[in-house]
């Protein structure tokens, strides 16, 4: 099997299955969550609700006052990683083309050099966060195999993408195939690991914002 064959498989059947498993898994998990239901709150909510679920969904992206200095590594590392990853996924032209092919949506990309720099920053942040996870007592206690697995499958697409783009380590076509395989691994694991927070954090934030808003607090 030549490298191009591997890439053809990665772009073809492997990708189809990974995408389907991911979509089916996400839908399943959403059912799993929402299906449990929630009792109606019979307590009369405050008339003036300074917050709401939708508001918290957005505002929770910023650290509450004073929290940044409590754990700057997690916050700054988290921002750099997430922003780097988001830009890499959504603003690298080949990735936009991927999204356009599946959804028909498209937008202008960013220069490859900028995306490249942010991908490097995201990987550096991931490294830092792993070191922090291993050194910080709380994080180490909370961490299990799932956390390290999630870390690995998140790093791999970034790393293989970077190596492929720069023609490092392995032949480009092979690296591109590995890049796709790593994404497929990520897609399959996403619904069933903590990576599902990609979706569920919006649900959680909505509930949080709603629960607090009923009591008149913007959370």
């Amino acid at each position, binding site marked *: 099997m*030549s*490298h*191009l*064959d591997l*890439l*053809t498989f990665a*772009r*073809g*059947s492997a*990708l*189809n299955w990974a*995408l*389907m*498993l*991911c*979509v*089916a*898994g*996400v*839908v*399943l*998990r*959403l*059912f*799993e969550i929402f*299906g*449990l*239901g929630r009792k109606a709150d019979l307590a009369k909510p405050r008339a003036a609700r300074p917050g709401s679920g939708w508001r918290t969904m957005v505002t929770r992206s910023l650290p509450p006052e004073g929290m940044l200095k409590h754990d700057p590594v997690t916050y700054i590392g988290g921002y750099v990683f997430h922003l780097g990853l988001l830009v890499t996924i959504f603003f690298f*032209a*080949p*990735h936009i*083309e*991927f999204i*356009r*092919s*599946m*959804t028909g949506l498209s937008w*202008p*990309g*960013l*220069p*490859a*050099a900028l995306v490249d720099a942010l991908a490097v920053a995201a990987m550096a942040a991931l490294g830092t966060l792993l070191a922090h996870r291993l050194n910080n007592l709380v994080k180490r206690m909370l961490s299990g195999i799932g956390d390290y697995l999630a870390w690995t499958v998140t790093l791999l697409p970034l790393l293989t993408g970077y190596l492929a783009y720069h*023609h490092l380590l392995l032949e*480009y*076509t092979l690296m*591109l195939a590995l890049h796709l395989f790593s994404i497929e691994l990520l897609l399959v694991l996403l619904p069933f690991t903590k990576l599902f927070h990609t979706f569920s954090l919006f649900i959680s934030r909505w509930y949080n914002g709603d629960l607090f808003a009923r009591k008149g607090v913007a959370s």
Partner: protein
Amino acid sequence: MKQAEQLDNLPGTVGEGLTQRGISRREFLKFCSSLTALLALPPSMASAMAEAISKARRQSVIWLSFQECTGCTESITRSHSPTLENLIFDLISLDYHHTLQAASAEAAEHAREQAMKDNAGKYLLIVDGSVPLGNPGFSTIAGISNHDMLVETAKGAAAIVAVGTCAAYGGIPKAGPNPTGAVAVGDIIKDKPIINVPGCPPIPVVMTGVLVHFLTFGSIPELDELGRPKSFYGETIHDRCYRRPFYDQGKFAQSFDDEAARQGWCLFKLGCKGPVTYNACATTKWNDGTSFPIQSGHGCIGCSEPNFWDAGPLYKALSVPASATSEMLGAAAAVGAAAGVAITWHNRSTKAAANTAHEKVTVQELTQEKK
């Protein structure tokens, strides 16, 4: 162009031949310089190469054509005359090539057999086209199946050059569903050095360059893991493409006739396979260095790669799923929803059972009885 009767009049060495034909040493050196550049050899090698080629005996070459379209031959004949590439053919003794030779029928086959006998162990075998294994009758020459002719001719060859993607990797005949059971030369011949010169067709100067290398050094050039000469197939089209800066800047043509396309922006989104195609098109170009597909406004289709015909749609960007569709995802979502309904039903039963099993907590029941 070989004329059978001409063969007898040809001089013994290449140098003699050149002199006979009035090619000056200066002209020949110039040609060798361009070849050293092409082969990625130091410029100082040019005179050594000229020396080697001049003294070389005319190399006997047998060219076999199997399941092919003659595009490769068409391509090699486009080595514009009166350039020296053309003359190189006079420097070799092309003893058998059923498109180019004048002889036919038994005389033709006799020429091949004679060459094999006269130059046993020394002749160079060039093959274009793939070999059908599905049924020997799919492709025969003089009643001999491609497979048998290849095996027979390969036996006494010094080396084999598989010209074109069909001979090198199976090419279009091997594309799914591969009705003839086509395979590459390398799938059949395992005991001879094989140089793959893929491309559909290969660049003329790449073919001649490989021949020159063999003539000069008497050996095969350094090959990559797919059996291709590294000097021609070492880099991707994308890496050497003059439109590469547009890719890096994120400037892409969205259709073949939009303003971006007219501005010469990158064709990645239109399905260009340049990033995964190893070939020299972007540097040597075609038709005497005139242009190459990307320069002419069409993306690379990756014709020199194994199984390129089955490597996803030609006009879909490389980063786009080859066959995934939104219908597929819709179906997956439906399956997920069905499973979700099932698990929701299960979860609700679990929860309902827990609610039923609930025994009202009283203050007397806040501690466990000591066993």
